[in-house]
């Protein structure tokens, strides 16, 4: 047995970040009006160039069109075949990341600074003049359908899809649940139409981060600033959808052989720019936003029901939602659900202890620092600001509110926004 050593019982002194030095980059413009933001820095000779289009699957007329139009940009152009494109991108060691989300389409190129000049013309080509070859479309549809079928055998996937549908309704693009048949309904002309309408300079923001070659702006100008690349004359219609007025009943999706059940509990919440949002984010963190959260402590660390449980706020441009997610043994599914509701209720009935609040504040302030570490992380935060129309001051405000928040404010916030009776519940598996 080791003799206790007194110096080891004493925690070293700590100090936490009070302020964050984040200056939003200056808004530059290309000749055709496209905004450009440069976030220079980092230790390695790498540049990340993101072309962000401010429209996503919210705007599509058929399921999958945004996904396909974005992911098949690199599948061929009027000038280059799919093989040529992938040869060049691979030869220069690039990573091309394509995101097709609800509100945005983003194409990000990660490349060694020295190689940027060799791939920009190609990037311009695939963004501006994709030809969407039919054979490539067929292949992607078939493979993606495979993936969908495989995923449909996972309780977590089922719970996620059905949960979104329960929240927003089957007609709403945020709630639409993908089906096998959707893969047989899309044609090349759908992608061309989507591209014409939404992937154009009128919708584009350029965010570059990392270490730049000497003539960064000139390079961007020559590839993306030309007057010949134009927004369409008629701007796309901004669709509008209603969300359900009443909350959906609990949904149970039975899977006979499941060893675990996937649980999702949650509700629609306020938008990102709402004045309560930061307080709600802090409240959520206490519930399930980190390893030391109440849900994790109770359901994993004390009861051992699960490998992991967490809760989160998700923001879209027009809506937002809160959810708790976990996978638990089927035999403890009911018990786990009870504990989840108990913890949601406890948020508004039981003040955080001084120790709880201290851990929460300190962890979140450190996490805040981590989320701004390095040029690529900063670019991500900045993109978030752009998409949600936040002001740079928002981030200072986060630290200020974090600093000032009290157990009472947390309870009030939970009472207002996370009442357990307002929750929607989806379980996939067995119970």
């Amino acid at each position, binding site marked *: 047995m080791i003799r206790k050593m007194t110096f080891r019982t004493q925690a070293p002194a700590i100090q936490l970040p009070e302020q964050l030095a984040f200056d939003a980059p200056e808004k530059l413009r290309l000749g055709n009006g496209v905004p450009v933001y440069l976030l220079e820095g980092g230790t390695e000779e790498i540049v990340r160039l993101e072309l962000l289009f401010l429209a996503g699957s919210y705007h599509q007329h058929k399921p999958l069109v945004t996904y396909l139009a974005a992911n098949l940009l690199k599948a061929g152009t009027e000038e280059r075949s799919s093989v040529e494109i992938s040869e060049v991108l691979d030869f220069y060691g690039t990573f091309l990341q394509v995101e097709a989300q609800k509100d945005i389409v983003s194409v990000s190129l990660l490349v060694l600074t020295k190689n940027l000049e060799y791939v920009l013309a190609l990037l311009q080509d695939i963004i501006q003049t994709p030809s969407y070859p039919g054979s490539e479309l067929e292949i992607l549809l078939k493979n993606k359908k495979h993936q969908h079928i495989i995923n449909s055998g996972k309780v977590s996937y089922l719970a996620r899809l059905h949960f979104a549908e329960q929240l927003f309704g089957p007609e709403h693009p945020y709630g639409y649940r993908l089906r096998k048949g959707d893969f047989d309904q899309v044609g090349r002309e759908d992608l061309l139409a989507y591209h014409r309408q939404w992937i154009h300079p009128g919708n584009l923001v350029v965010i570059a981060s990392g270490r730049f070659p000497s003539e960064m702006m000139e390079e961007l100008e020559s590839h993306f600033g030309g007057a010949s690349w134009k927004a369409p004359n008629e701007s796309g219609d901004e669709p509008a959808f209603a969300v359900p007025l009443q909350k959906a009943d609990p949904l149970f999706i039975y899977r006979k052989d499941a060893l675990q059940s996937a649980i999702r509990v949650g509700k629609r919440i306020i938008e990102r720019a709402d004045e309560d949002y930061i307080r709600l984010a802090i409240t959520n963190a206490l519930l399930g936003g980190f390893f030391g959260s109440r849900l994790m402590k109770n359901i994993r660390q004390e009861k051992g029901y699960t490998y992991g449980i967490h809760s989160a706020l998700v923001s879209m441009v027009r809506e937002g939602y809160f959810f708790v997610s976990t996978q638990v043994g089927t035999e403890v599914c009911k018990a786990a659900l009870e504990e989840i509701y108990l913890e949601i209720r406890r948020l508004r009935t039981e003040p955080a202890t001084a120790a709880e609040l201290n851990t929460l504040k*300190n962890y979140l302030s450190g996490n805040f620092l981590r989320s701004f570490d390095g040029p690529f992380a900063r670019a991500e935060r900045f993109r978030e600001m752009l998409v949600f129309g936040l002001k740079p001051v928002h981030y200072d405000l986060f630290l200020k509110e974090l600093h000032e928040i009290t157990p009472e404010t947390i309870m009030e916030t939970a009472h207002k926004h996370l009442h357990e009776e307002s929750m929607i519940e989806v379980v996939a598996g067995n119970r």
Partner: protein
Amino acid sequence: MVDFDKYVLSNGLRVIVHRDSSTPLAAVNVLYDVGARDEDPQRTGFAHLFEHLMFEGSVHIPDFDTKLQDAGGENNAFTSNDLTNYYDTLPAQNLETAFWLESDRMLELAFSEEKLAVQKNVVIEEFRQSYLNQPYGDVWMLLRPLAYQQHPYMWPTIGKDISHIRDASLEEVKHFFRKFYHPGNAILTVTGNVKADEVFRLTEKWFGDIPGGEPYVRSLPQEPVQTSARRLAVERDVPFDQIFMAFPCYGRGEDEFYAADLLSDILSNGSSSRLVQRLVKGRRMFSEVNAYLTGNLDRGLFIVTGKLHEDTGMKDAEQAFQEELEALRKEKIGERELQKVKNKAEASHVYSEANVLTKAVNLAYYELMGDAGLLNRQPELYSREEADHLQETANEMFKPECLSVLEYHSSKTSP
């Protein structure tokens, strides 16, 4: 280039420091030289179960996570067949908190029956979540014992059988700790906004008085050379067939490792790669393909795998892969194609250095291989490879008698 300083304590703990003043953070990584390969065959899954227990409080500090969170920190850990690795990131000014916490759990854990019971449950749920309740989740439970008949790589880190976890006793857990968790069996790396002198001072202060422990001498049964091909066919409730082909491959420290790694890139890294171009796009036989190395310290596996389209037969799938492997054995890879995969390797290396935590994890790993400086030699070790050597390596690796095939059949007639 990752510059570093190294220092060895008298109890055997190695410490490596890299300064990166561009970040306000510090990363602290503690690697223990113990993995699933070091487990008793009757008590598999122990290294990983133990990783969980390392967060359940130590002799002076009841709650590791909370104390680190109090300092604005975050942590996690992973266990592989070769090693167990713990890491923390936190604001650099709070560096000492990580030393306080990591040294205390190296000194002695606060073991208890209750904590063991809960973490056994958590691990059993992890086992179910990742291996049992997932389509294709049990692949490695099948493939490992097929490809390894002697070496302990025959079981996955989660363990061979869930009962090994369920039956683990507190005494066994304590014994495991004493055997593997001591300074002589560990490597500490610190990166970020830190100074080497200060790190060395803190290391002496917090780790200096921990007893060195008995050196662990690893003597694992080595896998005999495979002399005939092996095959296992199973049927499962999954929508599509999948094929896995495994060949014994070079260990991480062997020269041929780099050639083998480049061969796997030729096959499947990026959409211009051979398997994607020829078999996913050209012949449309697979919905996805992959070729990769398990990258173990002892001899690992070279895996070629693909999910079959409905109209592709298992035999045809294997034949198509065989043709690609044969091509690597018979024909020299062209200059441009070779340069392409070298460029990819270089770029991946540079991208990995943009992150303070990745640098800490990598330095520790290469130090375990014998020299942290190997990290900086990686680009050169790839770039010096030649087409002839890749061809020789392919000939050595892809011998028909070295093959293990797992045929993973779908029980459904149509998905």
